[in-house]
C-alpha cells in the first residue's frame, strides 16, 4: 500500500520561531516542498483511473472510429460514425429532449433537497429522524420497482391519479400518451427517488457552517431568511456547485427510470440520449456507432462541467 511510504521530501523542516519574519521565505519554498505529498495522497486513485477509465476509454474511442460489432475484426472507417450521427435527426431529438429534462429537473431537485436539508438541520423541527428515513428510502428502491409504483399512480388506464380525477368529474389525463405529460411524470418520479442524495450532501455541508456566524447574525437582528441568504448559501457554496454539477451529469445520463416508467414513450418522443445510444448502438450490435455517440456525449458533459466549475472557482475564492 502506497500510503506506507513516508512523504517527507527529506529536507529538514525548519523550526520557525518567529513566523512573522519567516513568512516570505516560506511562501517561496512552498511550491517546491509540497510536490510529493499530493502525489502520494492521490497515487492510488491515479493508477486506478488509468487502469479502469483511461484504458477502457481509449478502447471505446478506438471503437468509435471503426464499425466494430462486438465481435470480430475492427475495420477502421474513420469519421463515418461521427458524420452519421451528426446527420441523424433522432440524435438531435434525443439530445434536445434530454436537455429539456435536465433544465427542468436540476433546479427542482436543488430547491427541494436544499429546502428539506435546511429543515432537517434546524434544531426546532420535530420528527427529524423519521422524516429523514422517509426521504431516504425511495433512493434505495430499484428502478424496476420505482417504475411500477409510479405507473400505478399515473397509469393512463387504471392509475390512481386518473381514478381520483375521474371520480371528481374530470377526464382521465393521458399521462403516457402525451410526451410532455410523460416527461412531467418522469421528473416527479426522479425527484422522489433522488432527493435523498443531494439532501444528505447539503446536510453535511450546512452542519459545517460555524454556528458562531449565525449567532453573530442573530445578534445583528437578521431574520431566518436573511441568515439563510447571507450565511448558509455562501457557506455551502462549494457543495452547491457540486450538487448542481453532479445532478446535471446524472440527469443527462438518465435511462433506467425512463425505461421503467414509459419506455421512452410515447413511441420515441421521450427517448433520452443514453437510451438512443443503447437502442441505435448496442441493441443493433453497432458498437462503433454507440461509442462515437458516447464520445460526443462526454464532450458535451465536459463542456458543461468546465462552465459550472467556473462558479466553483468563485466559491473557492469567496469562502
Amino acid at each position, binding site marked *: *500500500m502506497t*500510503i*506506507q511510504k513516508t512523504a517527507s521530501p527529506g529536507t529538514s523542516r525548519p523550526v520557525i520561531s518567529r513566523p512573522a519574519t519567516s513568512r516570505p521565505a516560506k511562501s517561496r519554498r512552498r511550491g517546491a516542498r509540497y510536490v510529493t505529498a499530493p502525489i502520494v495522497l492521490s497515487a492510488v486513485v491515479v493508477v486506478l483511473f488509468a487502469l479502469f477509465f483511461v484504458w477502457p476509454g481509449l478502447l471505446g474511442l478506438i471503437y468509435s472510429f471503426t464499425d466494430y*460489432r*462486438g*465481435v*470480430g475484426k475492427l475495420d477502421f472507417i474513420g469519421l463515418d460514425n461521427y458524420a452519421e450521427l451528426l446527420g441523424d435527426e433522432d440524435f438531435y431529438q434525443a439530445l434536445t429532449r434530454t436537455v429539456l429534462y435536465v433544465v427542468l429537473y436540476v433546479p427542482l431537485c436543488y430547491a427541494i433537497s436544499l429546502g428539506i436539508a435546511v429543515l432537517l438541520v434546524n434544531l426546532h423541527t420535530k420528527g427529524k429522524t423519521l422524516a429523514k428515513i422517509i426521504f431516504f428510502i425511495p433512493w434505495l428502491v430499484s428502478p424496476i420497482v420505482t417504475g*411500477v409504483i409510479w*405507473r400505478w399512480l399515473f*397509469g*393512463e*388506464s*387504471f392509475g390512481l391519479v386518473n381514478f381520483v380525477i375521474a371520480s371528481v368529474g374530470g377526464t382521465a389525463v393521458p399521462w*403516457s*400518451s402525451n410526451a410532455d405529460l*410523460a416527461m412531467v411524470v418522469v421528473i416527479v418520479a426522479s425527484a422522489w427517488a433522488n432527493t435523498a442524495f443531494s439532501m444528505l450532501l447539503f446536510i453535511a455541508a450546512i452542519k459545517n457552517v460555524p454556528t458562531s456566524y449565525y449567532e453573530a447574525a442573530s445578534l445583528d437582528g437578521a431574520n431566518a431568511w436573511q441568515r439563510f441568504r447571507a450565511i448558509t448559501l455562501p457557506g455551502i457554496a462549494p457543495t452547491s456547485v457540486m450538487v448542481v454539477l453532479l445532478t446535471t451529469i446524472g440527469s443527462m445520463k438518465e435511462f433506467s427510470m425512463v*425505461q421503467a416508467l*414509459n*419506455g421512452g*414513450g*410515447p*413511441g*420515441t*418522443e421521450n427517448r433520452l440520449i443514453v437510451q438512443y445510444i443503447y*437502442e441505435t448502438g448496442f*441493441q*443493433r*450490435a453497432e458498437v462503433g456507432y454507440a461509442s462515437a455517440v458516447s464520445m460526443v456525449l462526454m464532450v458535451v458533459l465536459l463542456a458543461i462541467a468546465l462552465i459550472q466549475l467556473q462558479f466553483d472557482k468563485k466559491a473557492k475564492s469567496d469562502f
Partner: protein
Amino acid sequence: MNARTKLIALGAVTVLALTGCAAGAGSDETPTLQFVLSGDGTQGGGYQAMADKYKEETGVTVEIVDVPYDDLVTKLRNGAQAGDLPALARASDLDPIWSNSLLDLSDIAADQNVMDSLLVANDDDEILALPSDLTAVGLYINKSLFDEAGVTYPVSGDEPWTWDEYIAAIQTVQAKTGARYGMVMDGSAHRLRSMMYEFGSTGVEEQSDGTFEMNDDSKTALEYFKKISDDSIMPKSVWLSGEDPSALFKSGQVAAYYSGVWQITDFAENITDFEWQSVLLPAQTVRSTNLGTNWMVAFDGTGVEDETRDFINWLYEPDNYAELSEISGFLPAVEGLDITYQNSPESFALYNEEIAASDPIAADQATEALRKGYLGQKLEFEPLKDEVVKYLNGEQDIDTTVLNINEQTSEAYGE
C-alpha cells in the same frame, strides 16, 4: 483506533479478500457441469429439480446458474471472452461470439424424438442446438365478461373465428358490460407476427437476392392492427409507452388478452376476481400461432463434453422431460409425450391443439433465427416492433414502415 492501526487492519482485510476468494470450483473426482439459464426460479424450479434427480441417479453435479433474463446474453458473451464458458446453456439465441464452439447434438435429437419442425441443421448436417421447450402465442378471454354479455367464443374442437368476427365479439362485450377495453396485446413483435401470419403473411422473408421483404398480406395485417389500436378497442399505451398489458387484463376491465402460454401459471395463481379462459386464436385466412423456444446448447472446450452430452440425453428422455415440463409448465418440444399439468390442464391442451393445427409458418421465426445463428448472424433488435411503434404513434405512414422494416432487416443480416 489510531490511524496506523486502521491502516494495518485495512491492509490485512484487503489481502484476505483478494486472495481468500479467488477462483473457487472444487477439485473433486466427479466433474461439475455448469448450466447457465434464466428464469428457472420463476418457473417453478424445474431444471433445479432435474439437476437434483440427476445427481441422485448418477452422482454427477449439475450446477444451475440462474441469471436475470436481461443479462443472460452478456453473461455468456463475457464468459466466452474470458475463456470461461459453462458446460451447457439454455440461450435465447445463438451468439456469434460462441456459436462456433458448440457440440453436435443430432444423435440426441434423433434418439429422443425432438420435435422435427424445430430441428435445424447447419451446412455440415450438425444440429448444434436443440429446442429446450416450446412457447406459443395464444388468446385469453375474461370469461366472466363474455358470459355476462352472452357472447360465445370458440374452444377446443371448434373452428376458429376470423379477426372480423373476433373484433365484433369483443366490441359487443364492451358495449354490454362496460368493459374499458376490448383487448390488449403484448408489446412484442413476436405476438404481432402471429397476427400477421393469421392474415396470410409469411413474415420478413429472405428473397432470392438476399434482401428481406414482407408480402402484401403483411401490410394488410399492420393496417388492421393500427385500426384497432384506437384507444377504445385496444389501448395504444401498451405498444407506445410500455404499459403492462398483463396488469391491465388482470384488472378485470379488459375482455381479451393476446399473449402466450407462459401466462397460465401466473393467471392460475393470481386472478381471483373473475374467470379467465384460453380460447382459439382468430384466423383471418390462415390458422397460425407463433412458436418460441429457447435453445439448449453444449459448449466445446470445457473438458466435460461427454458428461454434458449424457446429461442432455438424459434430460430429453420421455420420463424426465415430461417431469420437467410438468414442474415448469412448459409445452413440450418432444413429440409423443403425455404430460399432466397441475395448473389448468385444459389450457395447455388447447395450446397443443393450436400448435398441431397451425400452418408451418408458425415455426418460422424460431428456426430462421437459428439458421442465421449458425452463419454467425444475429438480429439483435426488432425492426418490426420499432417501426410499428412509430407507425402507431403517427410518426410515419404504412409504406414507410414496411420499407424501413425491409431495409433494416436486410442490413442487419447483410453482414
